[in-house]
């Protein structure tokens, strides 16, 4: 676990976050980076997620597992307020990030999403060059100026996304010419270029072949080692065991059981989790 803050993450004018971060480190990490308290999600009248409370620490990978439609992706999308983009979707409860509730109307979602990044199931590189994909958000937010700074950030992000060696000679080519796995790592690199402290992965490997899956998993482990809090939704249980430190099991809108990954898979307590792990449903 890394206690040192990454210097670039402080850019972008997040005064309240910085204040609470200092507070948090003063308490020697007693405060978790991200904590949800009784979070519920309703679509129109349908409650997709019942009261869910989880905590996420820095430098830790947490896997959210469960059968399709269990609410794990829905929960993940709460954490960067992505559900706000869906009409008639309501999120209840509180989400504490750096000790501050972000599930409020006054929260600036655009500022928030700079530090809570997200990678989706389908790779979504924009119809631009590889370089412009990386620089897209930093430029929009005015985080980089000048060619040197841009080049440095592109290299840093692509290295962090484990893509640099493959694309360093074709940075100005279209991102759409990359393979699926490369596109997904580009999306991870693009997210890391914003220097987030939380990255959410929504089934990042389900559209990828085994080799690409392996490299994406390795990338997730590596970024966790730099102190980033990674949260990954997956329906691949081997993936959860390979990549995560902690696991939470969701079933029909309930967070059923959570704990260290080893314990969840070797000594599951809840009957539903046992059934799921032995393949009796899902």
């Amino acid at each position: 676990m890394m206690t040192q803050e990454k210097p670039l993450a402080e850019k972008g004018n997040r005064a309240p976050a910085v204040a609470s971060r200092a507070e948090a480190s003063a308490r020697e990490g007693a405060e978790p980076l991200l904590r949800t308290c009784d979070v519920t999600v309703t679509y129109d009248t349908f409650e997709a997620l019942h009261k869910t409370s989880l905590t996420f620490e820095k430098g830790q990978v947490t896997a959210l597992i469960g059968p399709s439609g269990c609410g794990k992706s829905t929960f993940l999308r709460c954490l960067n307020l992505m559900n706000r983009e869906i009409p008639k979707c309501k999120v209840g409860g509180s989400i504490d990030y750096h000790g501050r509730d972000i599930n409020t109307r006054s929260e600036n979602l655009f500022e928030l999403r700079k530090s809570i990044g997200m990678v989706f199931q389908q790779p979504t590189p924009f119809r631009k060059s590889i370089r412009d994909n990386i620089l897209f958000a930093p430029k929009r937010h005015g985080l980089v100026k000048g060619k040197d700074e841009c080049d440095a950030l592109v290299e840093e992000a692509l290295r962090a996304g484990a893509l640099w060696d493959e694309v360093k000679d074709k940075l100005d080519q279209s991102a759409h010419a990359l393979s699926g796995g490369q596109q997904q790592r580009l999306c991870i690199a693009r997210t890391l270029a914003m220097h987030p402290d939380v990255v959410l992965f929504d089934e990042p490997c389900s559209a990828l072949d085994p080799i690409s899956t392996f490299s994406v998993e390795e990338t997730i482990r590596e970024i966790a080692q730099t102190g980033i809090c990674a949260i990954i939704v997956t329906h691949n249980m081997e993936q959860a065991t390979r990549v995560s430190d902690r696991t939470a099991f969701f079933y029909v809108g309930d967070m059923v059981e959570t704990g260290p990954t080893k314990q969840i898979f070797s000594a599951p307590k809840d009957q539903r989790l046992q059934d799921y792990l032995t393949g009796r449903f899902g």
Partner: protein
Amino acid sequence: MAQLPKHRVELIGKGVTGACIALVALLVVTLVAMVAQRGIATFAVDGIDLGAFLTGTTWNPHQDDVNGMPTVGALPMISGSFAVTLLSTLFALPIAIGSAIFVVEIAPRFGRRVFQPLIELLVGIPSVVYGLIGLTVVVAWTRDMAAAAGQTITGFGIFSSAIVLAVMILPTITSLSIDALAAVPNQYREGSYALGCTRWQTVWNVVLRSAAPSLMTAVILGMTRAFGEALAVQMVVGNAIQMPTSLFTPASTLTSVLTMGMGNEAMGTVYNDVLWSLALLLLLMSLVFILIIHLIGHKGGTKRG
């Protein structure tokens, strides 16, 4: 024995549908061939110089020039046609894209229920009605505005035509732009939102960018319509066959000259042949527009893959 009638029905079906295809194909081929044959006759039979036709600025078919040939410089109406087309697209495009963004990104329900039917209604209005409104409203308005600025003009001309045409092509460009924006996968928007981009940044940098090839197609289809529109333009353009020197003086387009001139001359005269050449020019331009659309379609297709 029971097989035979069934087999015969198959044959009849094939025959009937095949005949339909053959008829359509024949129609297209003969149409192009006829326009081409008559249009080329101007140069091949009547001996008019192609260069002089395309670049000549004087149009006076009943007066022979120094070489004893009729003076048929078509540049005034060629430039008139391009001027009204480009100007009308310029007027219509921002409005069309703006409303498409509103319909797709901001109020999809309002868009589907109210705006799109409204737009489709606009497509259905006959062009003579547009011309009439242009004549009574746009021409008069242009004249009054100029009068307020101390200028005396008739109000007829490229500017008025471009405004009328802009309204006419607006629905085409708008509804195709709506389709283009709606076809952008939602993942692109979410990808942008997840990076902390605002809705505006997302629309401007991601959605419009991804939809660019389809938007180009929408623009060119609109331009094709503007280029080929005859009646409404003829009613407001002023029909003075001279090189356009101002947007506010009477001018003419390929289509307006055609509609004015056809029927006044007997088949086979030089003047009549020259009109066919104008028609051929129009046809070729439409073909170019359609070709561009196909090229864009292919390029977009490979890029997306």
